[in-house]
């Protein structure tokens, strides 16, 4: 039974981690926030150097795994670039990337970038992004769309799954930072990590992260199958829940310093928001999955 990415994909993920670190690490996001129109210049060459745009994500299983590993590494550094959206681009449209949008309120994290974007709704209606209107935090902007066709149903699953891998990378980092913090920070004369109340909160976070890790792989491999969209929505539901638990725990255990911009958690936390809210947040994702399922369960032991 295959339960993990292949060795090549994992090595690619490690290589990406090193490349993002060498390019500036956490400072990339800080620089991009100050000047969003530098995002491409800051990150584009690193991704090109890694060969990200040569991955044939929708046709080649090895590329698919490499893309997932790359997204996870991007999340680890909160890379200020929509790498998942770029990798999820459809093969039959002349665009640079694909954004899954909600009906009626299309948004994307594309402020400061000049790429040609396509958008797709969960039921497969595709559009071209004509221009950005109102902008918001974390590089988000409302998208003005022009309808293209309704042939995008097969594009959706992967375009939902890859951003969950970015979010997973953020959770990896948030927990890693928090474990380091509670080992170092002393209160009442001893490290926070010696308090059972602290230890148990860490396990709440780790169970969520670990569960998301295994579901992300399942949904990745299923993204091109008939179950792809159900599995992607199930993953997304779990990813948002996991993020809620993990960031709550990590903020709590960091204490006030976790809100300060000198702390990486502060950046990870706020830049996780678009991944958690777009195209649909927790309740809307659950409603959508539930109504899609009707009385049919997810494919499993008793299907």
């Amino acid at each position: 039974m295959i339960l993990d990415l292949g060795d090549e994909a994992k090595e690619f993920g490690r290589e990406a981690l090193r490349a993002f670190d060498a390019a500036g690490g956490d400072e990339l996001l800080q620089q991009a926030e100050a000047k969003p129109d530098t995002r491409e210049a800051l990150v584009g060459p690193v991704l090109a150097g890694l060969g990200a745009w040569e991955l044939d994500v929708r046709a080649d299983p090895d590329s698919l795994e490499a893309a997932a590993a790359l997204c996870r590494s991007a999340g680890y550094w909160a890379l200020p670039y929509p790498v998942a959206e770029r990798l999820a681009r459809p093969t039959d449209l002349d665009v640079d990337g694909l954004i899954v949008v909600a009906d009626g309120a299309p948004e994307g994290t594309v402020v400061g970038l000049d790429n040609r974007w396509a958008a797709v709704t969960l039921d497969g209606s595709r559009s071209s992004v004509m221009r950005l209107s109102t902008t918001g935090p974390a590089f988000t902007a409302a998208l003005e769309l022009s309808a293209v066709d309704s042939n995008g149903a097969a594009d959706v699953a992967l375009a939902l799954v890859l951003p969950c891998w970015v979010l997973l990378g953020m959770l990896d980092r948030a927990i890693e930072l928090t474990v380091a913090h509670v080992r170092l920070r002393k209160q009442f004369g001893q490290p926070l990590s010696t308090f059972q109340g602290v230890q148990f909160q860490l396990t709440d976070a780790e169970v969520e992260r670990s569960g998301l890790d295994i579901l992300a792989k399942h949904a990745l491999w299923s993204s091109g199958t008939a179950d792809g969209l159900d599995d992607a929505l199930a993953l997304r539901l779990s990813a948002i829940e996991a993020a809620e638990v993990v960031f709550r725990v990590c903020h709590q255990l960091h204490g006030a310093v976790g809100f300060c911009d000198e702390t990486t958690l502060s950046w990870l936390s706020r830049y996780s928001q678009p991944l958690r809210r777009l195209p649909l947040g927790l309740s809307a994702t659950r409603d959508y999955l539930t109504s899609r399922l009707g009385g049919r369960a997810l494919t499993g032991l008793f299907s």
Partner: protein
Amino acid sequence: MGQNAKQLRGELRELVNEHVPHDFLGAFTDNPADLEVAQRFCRLLADRGLLCMAWPEEFGGRGASVWQQTVVREEMWAHHEPRGAQYMGVNWVGPIIMRHGTPEQQRKHLPPIARGEVIWCQGFSEPEAGSDLASLRTAARRDGDGWRVSGQKIWTSYATMAQWCFLLARTSKVGEGATQKKQQGLTIFLVPMDDPAIQVRPIRAMLGPHHLNEVFFDDLLVTEADVLGPVDGGWSIVQDVMSFERVGIARYARCERLLHAAPTALGDAWDGLPAELRGRWARMLTHCRRARLLAYRVVSLQSSGRIQPGDAAAYRIAVTKLDQDSAEVLMEIIAAIPRDDAAARYFRAEVEDHWRYSQASTVASGSIEVQRMLLSRAMLAAS
């Protein structure tokens, strides 16, 4: 899992369908006929080579893969464990005796387990030693060539029906000889339950009959041949038992089957459920999948010898919480079924049974607090 696993799953479902009554809720009821069902079913599985299929061939097994064994665990637990208490013999008592027993103990104990003829109970917990198991007080003292055991065990599942007990007792006090820590000085004994020096007192409980008992040992004489592994070296065997128990019960499989069956059981009433409740049902489906995949990861790591305590603990926390969370959702769902709906009567009973039994899932076989301690220790050590 592959084609073999799929075929095996189909074969097991056919056997359950043919040989287990359609209103079966497990062997542990007040109706002795339910225990007989389990006894017959075990013999049937044994005759077909399915009971101990993952055991090595030299001990009566078929050397099946860990994935085939996983299918057996899933299908049996999903269908209210028609093997009854004998799952323990197959899952861990037998394998532990293979690993630590003498050739004589293997000849004596393994064939009856492989034939589905014997029930074991586990004599670990005591009134003053639950999660802190090494604090147990039941003592075995030397008496000539043998040992005399006195003390009390508690929460001992299936003790009323067991022929043998896998007993952990203190053989050296802390501070005596080389015994420096309380985990030292403990020894495993394989004890026949029909000895008059053993008394079993059932404890009525919400889990149902047979699940909880007290067992009293009053100067029980056991022989040297009944000692499993080294004297004073029982703790390492306990660790082995725990590692087998980590993936012992496929709790997620029953959760998934009941969640899957809910819309059919409710029929037209399903669409009338509050949307929020159906949303919780869908959420539980994702949690079932998560627990199942985490279980597979533990099985895979265990079979390759790369498992770390934290890997199994994360799974155990996820699956035991799933057991309880899904039970709450299912109880709310069946509240929409009219009491006089005969077609859904069995489903209601299954869910109610599932809810009662699930209450113990975060306590039994290593409490969730112990799992959290193991997991946090692994997290903090790894950084």
